[in-house]
């Protein structure tokens, strides 16, 4: 592959930044000024020396060909990851003005790269010979049994809470406030059922969520009850549904699907943060198989997760699905080449087909909030205080979710459309559609909306 072929756009580079301040600092360093001895190799390594405030320039090297997304090393003291120097270096490399010529990596960069490659090899070799945790299957089985017992106790307790609530009436929940459900959620954490804990915590927020809350509270109580009951009767469920229930309860699983090799188009990448954890979601679309897969990766609070696949690139790789019917979550396996630009676009559907798609997905997983869909030829249309995506060729439309309406991406979508049809990828659920990426009609690069 040529150098030209793997070049990223500035947007793709900036998507790696852990926060806005880094984006700004990195942008400023994306010019030739402070850099010296910058270079890149055909294998996908970029290096350079950046003049800082000290006498000794910082040594920065980025391995963009790494199978787990770009890897960075910089001698600066920043604890941001990637640091502004790594971002600046990638921007310089992306800017195409010949500031980063092809060449041979200097000693200090080569040393780090060789070390990384060796560790990756070792990990791969270790993975092939079986994981060390499988050492004592009997102990592992006993641990799993003990955990199942605790979850069963937790689910029973949660059922008691739900029936108590329904006996006295939802109207009383308005006065009870957060406290009751916070406490219940904490009990579910103790019962090692994080899925139940998260759902219990959300119940507490519903009574203050505006008009129509009793309906939403009843729906969520009923689905939580359904999950409790499914867990208590999991032995009688078909294997696939039982796997889905276990993942909804929050039990860990390993990807066990057969590895599927495809040219995977990165449809979208976005982060959600809570005080303790940053969760990154990456949607992939197999350009041959037509499959959509979700990669999840996590970072401790304030740090960007390590896996980064910029939107719009495509990667030749294997992914393996997690257990469960209709399960979209997958794990990235072997990558055969570095991510590279593509003009491929996902196949799209009408709004009606998208709604059917969500309905069918609920058959496999009734707790599903949304499904990924690509809408073809839709026009962003104002609808009172709200917005919807209307089919160009039919009188039907999907409303946007309230979160989508409040994000700046909405206006990029409206600007891109200008009243004309566009192709939009996003998540569709019972709350509406959340657009994540859009393509203009005709040629043109995809535009990130998240």
């Amino acid at each position, binding site marked *: 592959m040529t150098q030209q072929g793997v070049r990223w756009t500035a947007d793709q580079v900036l998507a790696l930044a852990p*926060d806005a301040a880094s984006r700004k600092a990195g942008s400023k360093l994306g010019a*030739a000024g402070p850099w010296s001895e910058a270079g890149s190799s055909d294998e996908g390594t970029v290096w350079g020396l950046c003049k800082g405030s000290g006498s000794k320039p910082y040594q920065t090297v980025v391995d963009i060909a790494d199978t787990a997304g770009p890897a960075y090393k910089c001698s600066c003291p920043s604890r941001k990851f990637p640091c502004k120097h790594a971002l600046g270096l990638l921007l310089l490399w992306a800017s195409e003005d010949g500031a980063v010529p092809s060449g041979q990596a200097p000693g200090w960069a080569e040393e780090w790269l060789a070390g990384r490659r060796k560790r990756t090899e070792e990990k791969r070799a270790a993975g092939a010979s079986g994981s060390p945790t499988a050492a004592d299957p009997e102990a592992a089985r006993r641990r799993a049994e003990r955990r199942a017992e605790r979850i069963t106790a937790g689910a029973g307790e949660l059922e008691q809470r739900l029936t108590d609530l329904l006996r006295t009436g939802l*109207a009383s929940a308005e006065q009870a406030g957060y406290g009751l459900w916070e406490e219940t959620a904490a009990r579910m954490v103790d019962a090692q059922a994080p899925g139940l804990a998260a759902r219990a915590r959300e119940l507490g927020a519903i009574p203050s969520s505006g008009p129509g809350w009793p309906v939403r509270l009843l729906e969520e109580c009923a689905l939580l009850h359904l999950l409790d009951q499914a867990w208590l009767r999991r032995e009688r469920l078909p294997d696939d549904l039982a796997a889905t229930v276990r993942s909804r309860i929050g039990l860990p699983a390993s990807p066990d699907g057969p590895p599927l090799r495809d040219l995977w188009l990165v449809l979208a990448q976005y982060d959600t943060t809570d005080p303790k954890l940053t969760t990154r979601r990456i949607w992939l679309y197999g350009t041959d198989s037509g499959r959509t897969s979700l990669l999840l990766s996590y970072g401790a609070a304030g740090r960007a997760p390590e896996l980064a696949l910029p939107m719009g690139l495509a990667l030749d790789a294997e992914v393996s699905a997690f257990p469960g019917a209709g399960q979209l979550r997958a794990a990235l396996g072997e990558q055969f080449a570095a991510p590279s630009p593509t003009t491929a676009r996902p196949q799209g559907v009408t709004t009606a087909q998208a709604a059917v798609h969500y309905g069918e997905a609920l058959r496999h997983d009734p707790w599903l909030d949304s499904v990924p869909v690509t809408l073809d030829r839709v026009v962003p249309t104002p609808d009172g205080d709200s917005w919807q995506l209307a089919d160009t060729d*039919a009188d039907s439309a999907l409303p946007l979710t309230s979160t989508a309406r409040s994000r700046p991406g909405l206006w990029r979508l409206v600007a891109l459309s200008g*009243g*004309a049809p566009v192709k939009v990828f996003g998540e569709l659920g019972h709350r509406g559609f959340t657009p994540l990426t859009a393509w203009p009609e005709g040629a043109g690069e995809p535009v990130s909306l998240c």
Partner: protein
Amino acid sequence: MNTTPAPAPPAADWEELVTSALLGTDRRTPPGHAPGQDAPVALLDAAAVETVRRRAGLCPARAAQRPEPAAPDTRPALPVAAARRLAMLLTDRPGTGGGGRRGTSPDLMELLPQWLTAANARGFAAPVQALPALLDAARGRTDLRPAALEFAGPRALWLARLNPDWRFALRATPGGGTALPDLDAPDQVQLLWQEGLFAERVALLAAIRAQRPSSARELLVTTWATERAEDRLMFLDSLRMGLTAEDEPFLEQALADRSRNVRATAAELLSALPDSALAARMAIRASACVAVDRTREEPGLVVEAPHECDSGMERDGVVAKAPAGRGERSWWLGQLVEATPLATWERRLGGRTPKEIVALPVADDWRSELHAAWCRAAVRQRNADWSRALLGTPSAPEAGGPGAVSLAERAKLLSTLGGGERADWVAGFIASQGLSEAFQLLGVCAVPWAAPLGRAVVDALNIARDAGSYPWSFSGVMGLAERCLDPAEASRLDGLLAVPDETEDAAPGAGGYWAEAFQRLVTTLRLRAAMAEELGAP
């Protein structure tokens, strides 16, 4: 989601379930509850089935009225590299972190205005996905608005109608984003002129004036008598563009206006017409005040300022009441000379050239007053010969200090000269007077600076560094240089990037800060060169 659940008979059952759930099963038995069953569990079971059924049965909503498509933008798309550059310039927004000492990296936001000017000069269309960020940037910085809105094009106005945050774009565009009527359709023009909002009428008048100056004046005459005083002032001001002798009769009439401001503006416009009757009247009055003194060996000028401001003078726009601290007679003299065609003096003062006239000594301390009035006249009448004479040579000792002509007046005089001459004069000024007074003069020079001017600035900065001061004493000029120096000059700065050895009399650490400032200058110049190259030749 305000989509419709699938039509199905048990919809009523769902309502019943919600009611029972709200009141509690102790008070109300849920529908379909069999005896012997635990009522809350039965309710939850039924609700779970209904919830999944309702969600699975969701259908799309009816489409609302789709927006009118945006007007097409026929300009060519930006080259890919330039589009990336724009994305980066827009990423660097105020309030996105940073702050403190500037260091060696360029200030991207400062380059955005220049980038926009270059992109507009080349006639490129903005990438549509960049429009929201562009509108947000223009919202925060009014100085950016004209260039940003021109670049943003018709789709930005289309967006601004959908988002109240961007209403300013509609206000900033003449006609509020609605197109002006066809100027060849007299009915439509008359309708807008009679019934339009004030801003629309100003925009209409300006648009007509730009194409057919006399039609604009004729339109204005039709309603002149009924307009309010402040509106008359604004309308009259729009005649400044494309002013010709044809406007004179109308302006003469306006000299009798009820409003003093309207009279003053009419007089100002007339005096900019050297052949106007008003200019001739003023010339007679002014000539009576200034004469060559032939009683001495060396010829010189004597000034006899007017002793009164008569009604004729007042009618011609002379303001009778002097501002506090100024003598009445010198105040009147200044106004007469300012409104007098400059050619008058060459005839009146013995066929001398402007240069010779300016060089004449002036008796009794009237020199400053007379020269200042000539400066205002030279600027108003765009007279390059007189400007040159009044500017004098840049190396003259009084060019930098308090002479007869102030720096502010020099800056205005420079603006009447051609770009090359202007740059040469300022370069000469900097070479002999240094940088401390040059800031104002640099502001009127064309960008990028001509080579001799750029060289003079860099040399002066180098001298300032060697003199041992800190670079922030020159941060204004340094900032201007980052924006205005020709990027081709970047290589000349290479010798200034190193940290020099500290000498005894230098300010501590200054050398390091200077090196940093020069590095930033070079980095910015390289970046500007790259920006220009990405946008292609004009």
